[in-house]
């Protein structure tokens, strides 16, 4: 076990865990930040997407020991009042079905928009390819990303 001081959603959080523990389980089991979901554990589904210094990362394959000083943002910290343009657009388009994948989708889309504020369909297809939605809400996700792009 080792001690880590992590910068998460603007606050410093300390955990004492095995160095190999993926950030996903540190967030969920140790810090009770459960918005970040487990879907595959091998960077194949995107449910666990968080931002590391603003870059989308799959937290299920990121050992806590590699986080270091980088700041971690989870869905809980994406916006002050859960009113990020993507979150609002998701409501406007009534995107979710079961909803389980959606936090990961939004986190991935947020990173996409900060790099590419006006993404084309092809940009969206390429950037969102790592996020599975088993319920098949892809057309709404794409529409919501475009709506958010016009508003951010």
């Amino acid at each position, binding site marked *: 076990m080792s001690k880590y001081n992590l910068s998460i959603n603007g606050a410093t959080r300390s955990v004492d865990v095995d160095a190999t523990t993926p950030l996903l389980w540190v967030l969920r089991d140790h810090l009770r930040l459960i918005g970040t979901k487990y879907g595959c554990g091998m960077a194949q589904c995107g449910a666990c997407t968080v931002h590391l210094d603003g870059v989308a990362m799959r937290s299920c394959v990121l050992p806590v020991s590699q986080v270091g000083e980088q700041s971690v943002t989870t*869905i809980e910290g994406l916006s002050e009042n859960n009113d990020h343009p993507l979150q609002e657009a998701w409501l406007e388009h009534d995107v979710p079905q079961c909803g389980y994948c*959606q936090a990961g989708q939004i986190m991935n889309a947020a990173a996409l928009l900060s790099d590419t504020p006006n993404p084309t369909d092809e940009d969206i297809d390429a950037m969102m390819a790592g996020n599975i939605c088993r319920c098949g*809400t892809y057309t*709404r996700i794409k529409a919501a990303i475009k709506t958010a792009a016009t508003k951010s």
Partner: protein
Amino acid sequence: MTKVRTSYNRRSFLKSVAVTGGGLVLGFNWLSGCRPAETKMATGPVLPDNWYEINAYLKIGENGTVTIRTPNPEFGQNVKTSMPMIVAEELDADWENVISEQAPFNADKYGFQFTGGSLGIRTRWEGLRTAGAAARHMLREAAAQTWSVPLAEVTTAAGILYHKSSDRSASYGEMAELAGSFPVPKEVELKAVKDFTIIGNSKKNVDARKIVSGEPLYAMDRYEEGQLVAMVVHPPSFGQRFGSIRNLEDVKAMPGIREVFSIKTYKDDFQKGFFDTNAFPELVAIVGASTWEVMNAKKAILVDWQPLEAYTETVGGLFGGANTSRNVPAGMESTEDHRARMNEAAGRSGRVVRKDGDPQAAFASAERVIERSYSAPFLAHNCMEPINCLARVEGDKVWIAGPMQAPGLIEPTIAARMDIPVENIEIEMLRMGGGFGRRGYSHYLLEAALIAQRVKTPVKLIYTREDDMTNGVYRPAYQATYRAALDGAGNLLAFHVKAGGIPESPLYANRFPAGAIDNYLAEDWTLDSNITIGAFRAPRSNFMAGAEQSFLDELAEAMGKDPISFRLELLQRAATDPVGDKNDYDPARYAGVLKLVREKAGWDQKKPDVHRGVSAYFCHHSYAAHVLELTVEDDKPTVQKVTCAIDCGIVVNPDAAVNMAEGGIVDGVGNALFGEMTFTDGVPDKNNFHQYRMIRMGEAPRKIEVHFVKSDIDPTGLGEPPFPPVFGAIANALYKASGKRKYKQPFLGGQDLLG
């Protein structure tokens, strides 16, 4: 206006309410054991100081806020929004003041709380309306008594009671306490469809705000005081069972690990119910402090497995039907052997399920016989939220919270195994991260309870993705052979379908085109297997639709007919002069969706830049037709657009219904192109998404357009019907694109290219 009695199904569903309802109920004491997730609408109704229980489905606060309870579990079909809409409609509530919550599991109050079979809205329609209407009636009675005016003169609108002639009004909140003290009326009036103001007007998903904010909604997100994490290890191969743990002490000594032991899910003499499907009833359980530590122990454990002996078991019938018997063979099965066995079975005569006219003679006299065979593989459900469940056992009391489609189906199994009465079992239905049929088979509830009992602390059982994908309960593998007999003039003389599967048959002998052809033969066959199967979105239909609709397309072409006109001709025959009296579809509604999709997709206009396929199917009491358009660039197909027409009766929440249909279409495209589980020596060849290909953003149709047939008919199913016909529509479009018919799913077989 229609009058309905407030009791039905031999049980007065409102009467049982009177026990807990009526009079003043403070706070949430009635529900305190269950702590259901409260959901505020986006605008957020104000919570009252006091709640007054009106009936099992609703309570009203003194400030007019209404809480409506959804009896069925939510797995993404959005019942938690649409069911309260139905109650609110008849209550004449102001939707802005409605809070939606999941009802507790309580069969006495809510009957069969089940999500599946596209049955939710259909079976709850009258009950939910009656609950709302009865409450409205009681509120009107309260106003009539308070104002000393005749009941008939008290009207309502959007949560307000009026007595127009004396210019009086009061909010529901003001009358709720008195209303709650009245007996439930014997009879209530329901609104006419034309008077609906909430039903038919889209309302946003009541949980969407929580979902996009990452708030805890799923069992996976719950952490109980003192909870440990549990995982199970099941045999790597079907055809194996538990033997012994080789390195028990080593694993126990690993960091964070508390206990390692085996559990047995059933007692030896247990008579299984229809949904007690479970290939691995004996499992190794590992319990520890954190998920990662238990995952590591799971990687390190060494287990000796034993070969399974063949056995025969009797299982309870589906929903009270006759018991059935299953042969479970020994051995480690492979997909290669499955294919050979299926081909062999398909070549033999099957069990005749329906025969009209003299098909044998008609085939013998035919000028031309067209015969085609279709097949589809096993599929894994792959719900986004892997199987998981929380449990706590204190003495002879069991508490369980998890994702499940039908708690009532597993409750007796838990009671039998744990030797406790069902009253001692409390089950919380939490929002499911998908279901698709998989969570109707909730053996994991019992597993969690057995583990919690042994470790004497609350546990959260988590399946890894690999556990989830390799545990079984798959969509079966199927094969169907179609034959058509044509005379010299190209007329259809006879039709023959022979379908089978491992281990169940997909045949629906009385569905279209049965009833439209004089000489018709339907046969089926099955092959035993130790690989377990279960319901998967539109069971059996999800294969038959693709096979049948591909064959009809090929047949239309051979007969020189437009595929839609050909189907309409057959449906015309079934409508005017049906063959047989067992046909289970309505030809007029079937034709209705085909005509609507033809118009909306512009089928009769030439579209040289796209390849189009059409398909229509009836299942779950609803009708759906699709026209799918695709383009091919460098041999890579892209679905440009799907136009869909659905007849499911009254549509409660239109935009959410569109969302559901879009999801079904995306799911259909994905499974038709990529979905496949195969086996080698009993071992599933895929255990996570690097191997099991799921449809992704760029592969989804670019555009989906959903049209509903305008209807006053009571709602029928919607979650499943749009799914099966996708397989036929895409097969037919791929043929147009490539000149090659698609007979074997998945159509792209792991490739991106048409080939």
